[in-house]
């Protein structure tokens, strides 16, 4: 468990290098999400997206990315919303330890 001081007031990691799978579970718990294998599939894909494209996805490319990698059943907003309620791209990225969004998209 990381100390509270490792997170900013919105619950984002201050230093992205602190991210580990356990930290992901800790961030998720703060958002009342218990990470299941279904969540992890998406979290891993988000980290892969970030490595490949040096950016965090907006909702639309995330849906397409998931569809390409996990098939059309999972590449749907409604499926992603069921795992990460509200804003899957933002919430998923937060748990995946990607940079804090600047709210531009």
């Amino acid at each position, binding site marked *: 468990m990381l100390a509270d001081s490792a997170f900013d007031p919105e619950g984002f990691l201050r230093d992205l290098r602190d991210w580990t799978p356990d930290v992901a579970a800790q961030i998720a718990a703060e958002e009342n999400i218990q990470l299941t294998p279904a969540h992890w599939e998406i979290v891993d894909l988000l980290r892969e997206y970030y490595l490949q*494209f*040096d950016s965090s996805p907006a*909702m639309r*490319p995330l849906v397409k990315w998931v569809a390409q990698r996990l098939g059309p059943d999972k590449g749907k907003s409604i499926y992603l919303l069921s795992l990460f309620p509200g804003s899957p791209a933002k919430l998923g990225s937060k748990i995946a330890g990607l940079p804090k969004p600047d709210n531009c998209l």
Partner: protein
Amino acid sequence: MKPVGEHTRRSILVVSRHAHPGSSLPRSALDTALAAAAFDQPVTLLFQGEGLLQLLPAQDSRAAGVRNLRKVIDSLPLYDIETVYVDAIAAAAFGIARDSLPASARWLDTAGVRQLLASHDHVLGF
């Protein structure tokens, strides 16, 4: 944002003609195109002049500590921007060969560039 009907949608052409990383404009141009696509608005990207240097492969930004613009450009198809347009005359001037640019790049001569400019409702020069 208000939903906009298909018949009223105005198309945007983003012309990116500065080299990175010396200018922040390429990033702003790309962000504008991504935003338009994320909101499902018709958008086209044209790399003109030294702007086409943004497309060079094998960019590695790790030592410099800045974002890798080419990697962001590689995400365009996920935003349903399948084709980017490149000014062929500028490419020749810089000695850039066709096969060194992304497969999604379509090369345009001067007439092609003019045609692109004329076929969009708004043209944004970066």
